[in-house]
């Protein structure tokens, strides 16, 4: 079957053990205000126009007769700086697996593998499942997920993973809804399930200044995760960079200059990723 992917990134250094290739699933049920991959939010193919380096020649605005450009209002085949493109490529699971397995021997020699990320891979659960099945027995498979999915879906997909990296962003469901657009009940239920399995996993907490990095939130999460491994992720100051490219606006509720509260001492087994 087909899925929609917005990027494939080799030599991804922050997505699990060893050297990995990360495949980014397009579409996400959450709307975290700090998201740094705005092109991963919508499940549809969308116009992606980089502004930096634009010569202002307006060639891309001229009408063209390429089939693939219709409906986007721009020509994708003319920018002298290659700034106009479409985020989102449809892949057949098999073709994608072949592409990702290109470096199979290398992954296996250095303890690396493939990571599914996004967007939210569980939003294309069937596709993710098929892809993971194709990779089974070949390479180490990891998923990065918000955990926002029905429990059956979650359980079925993580069964096909060798390692799970799951976010817990805000422990209070109202807060969670306020900043990510959804409550966290499903997430916590799935997290509880994950904790109860012997599936190797790790929780991640994005440290968003003044929002998720309060002692109160961190303490609640710490209590919930207990002994499990946790990675606190520093706020990505480059998060706003891509919003303009997809015609979205970044939130003004985050003060990126404010120092984050990376209070590791609240956790039993946490590290900070800068």
């Amino acid at each position: 079957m087909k899925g929609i992917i917005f990027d494939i990134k080799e030599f991804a250094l922050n997505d699990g053990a060893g050297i990995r290739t990360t495949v980014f699933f397009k579409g996400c049920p959450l709307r975290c205000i700090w998201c740094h991959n705005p092109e991963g939010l919508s499940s549809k193919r969308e116009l992606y126009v980089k502004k930096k380096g634009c010569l202002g020649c307006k060639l891309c605005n001229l009408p063209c007769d390429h089939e693939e450009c219709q409906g986007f209002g721009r020509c994708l085949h003319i920018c002298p700086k290659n700034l106009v493109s479409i985020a989102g490529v449809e892949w057949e699971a098999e073709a994608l697996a072949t592409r990702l397995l290109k470096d199979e021997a290398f992954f296996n020699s250095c303890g690396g593998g493939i990571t599914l990320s996004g967007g939210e891979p569980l939003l294309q659960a069937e596709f993710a499942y098929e892809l993971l099945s194709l990779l089974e027995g070949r390479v180490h498979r990891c998923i990065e997920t918000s955990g926002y999915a029905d429990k059956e879906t979650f359980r079925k997909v993580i069964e096909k993973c060798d390692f799970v990296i799951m976010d817990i962003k805000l422990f209070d469901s109202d807060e969670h809804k306020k900043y990510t657009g959804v409550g966290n009940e499903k997430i916590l239920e799935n997290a509880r399930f994950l904790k109860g399995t012997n599936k190797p996993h790790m929780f991640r907490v994005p440290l968003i200044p003044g929002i998720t990095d309060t002692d109160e939130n961190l303490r609640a999460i710490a209590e919930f995760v207990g002994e499990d491994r946790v990675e606190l992720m520093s706020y990505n100051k480059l998060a706003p960079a891509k919003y303009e490219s997809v015609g979205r606006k970044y939130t003004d509720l985050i003060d990126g200059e404010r120092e984050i509260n990376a209070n590791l001492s609240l956790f039993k087994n946490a590290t900070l990723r800068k």
Partner: protein
Amino acid sequence: MNKELYNYYIIDRKHEELRTGSIGDVAEEYSQKKLSPIERMVDRFEKMCGAEVPHIVPFEKIVMMRTVPKLPDCFTESEWEEIKKEHYIHEIGYVSNLSPNYEKTISVGLLARREEADEYGKRVIDAIIGLTDRYRAEAQKCGRDDVVEVLTQVPRYGARNFREALQFFRILHYALWLEGDYHNTVGRFDVYMYPYFKKDMYAGVYTKESALELIEDFFISFNKDSNLYFGQQQGDNGQSMVLGGIDKDGNDMFSELSELCLLASRNLKVIDPKINLRVSAKTPIETYKLGTELTRAGLGFPQYLNDDIIIKGLERLGYKYEDAVNYAVAACWEPIIPYVGNDVANIGSMNFPAIVDKAVRNNINAESFDIILEAVKSYIYEEMDDIERDINNVWFVPSPMIELLIDEKRYNNFGVHGCGIASAADALASVKKFVFDENKVDRAELIKAMDENYENSPELLHLLRFEAPKMGTDNDDADAMAKFILDTFSASMEGRKNSLGGTWRAGTGTAMFYLWHAGPLGATADGRFSGESFGTNYSPSLFAQITNPMSVVKSFTKPDLYKTVNGGPLTLEFVSSIFNSEENLEKVAALVKYFVDLGGHQLQLNAVNLESMKEAQKDPEKYRQLVVRIWGWSAYFVELDKEFQDHVMSRQEYSV
């Protein structure tokens, strides 16, 4: 690190104030006296030694610096013109790019070497001893008993310990520069110095820390006079040091000394000596990790050299195994043989994109793409004919120092750079795909668009520049073209003799030709604009849409690189922030190992910070110590001409 010494020589460059000596011009006098070339070399050397004023900085252990900045030419301009009528003169005509046998002289001393030297050798040795005696007297005056002791032993007699060996090296290396030889390489330092180091470490003379400090002192000595040395740009001076690699029995020579050298370079963050690390499929990941820690320092060191490829490639060209296995590098990356090699590693260059361009233009209406490939092949052979014809009767100014330090001129091969491989391969792949296979691009239209520098064909430009197969994206079609060109290039040299009786060696380097060859070349079928530069050395084109370093590694390991053993490294640039964690450092080390295991030849890995470079262009004074890698050497960014600065900034950077 000895901060005082570092500040004196590197930051404040105080010693430059002492550069007041001069021997004036000598060429006119030599010309009138009709002195032979070797007489001139010796006379000038004696004058230079005589004019030097010893100066010892209180906190240095390894002494000798230049106080006579200018080395006047031995020949007048009109004499050079006469010489050039009969001879091919390489660069400035003096001997360069060899790997001298310091080891032998360091072990027996100059007096012993004097016994066997000819008249000129004796005079040169006497001049060196004269100068070092004056250094010893100066040391006495300064109350530096330690220096007096060292200089009482060396250079007259063989070194007894590590410090004496290092000081002796300094004296010989200094003398090579002073004689007018250039790109004087350091060779397999950790191999020939190891016995001295080991003996002292075993005897407890040094702790790891004090040994490191001595090595740092020694490393600083390479930077004292380096801005007086000849080179294309500041920093291009050939002081290449090779670490690690195997010996003839296959033993890994990477030692504690090698490790300390990596550490010293990392601590000092200076551009000399240039660190090269020999590795192979057998090299343990730990060695790569040590290398990567140096990469993190941002100097563009170490450059990795793959023994598996280089030894095989050298043997293929007729080098004996025991010589091939002992290879070191010339100024940049070209393998040279210590002690017995007299190769001229960088004598010529072939402009691949220009050859492909000519083949495309002359055969655009051909029935099949194979005809274009045939044309590329015949032009490469013709170009090689031209190179062979032009580079004839090569002559170097004779050098008594080199006679002293090179045992035998066993190998006299000429290296030719193969320039712009990615641009050339991409152009061929584009023409094959769009013109011949898919019929998507009209032939006449393509030629017209190139002639107009794509000014009236933005859509065609986009197709060729951004949507076409590119080397560096693990695209088999583009990579196959690169393999074809390099195989042909290598084959075109087979059976040819050069004027010194040696053969020819093909390479993948560009040196400065990525600008020089590219400048006059019009727009090409890979969507490259007229005059736009090529990638440095063995690298993707500057505008190829490259985001995946593993794909780059795969593309650039597909050709049979032992056939282009003269070399030229793949350059990968990583944004410096990725080196911030130990975990990432290990991952980068694993990537380097991947490259080597796949049959890569040479790798240049850089940690770069584009922001610092931008800032440095605006405010050079604040960034005087910012080091960047250029083609086979590193330089202080602010001392480069702007075109080199801009090129560095436009190279591919991976931000992972």
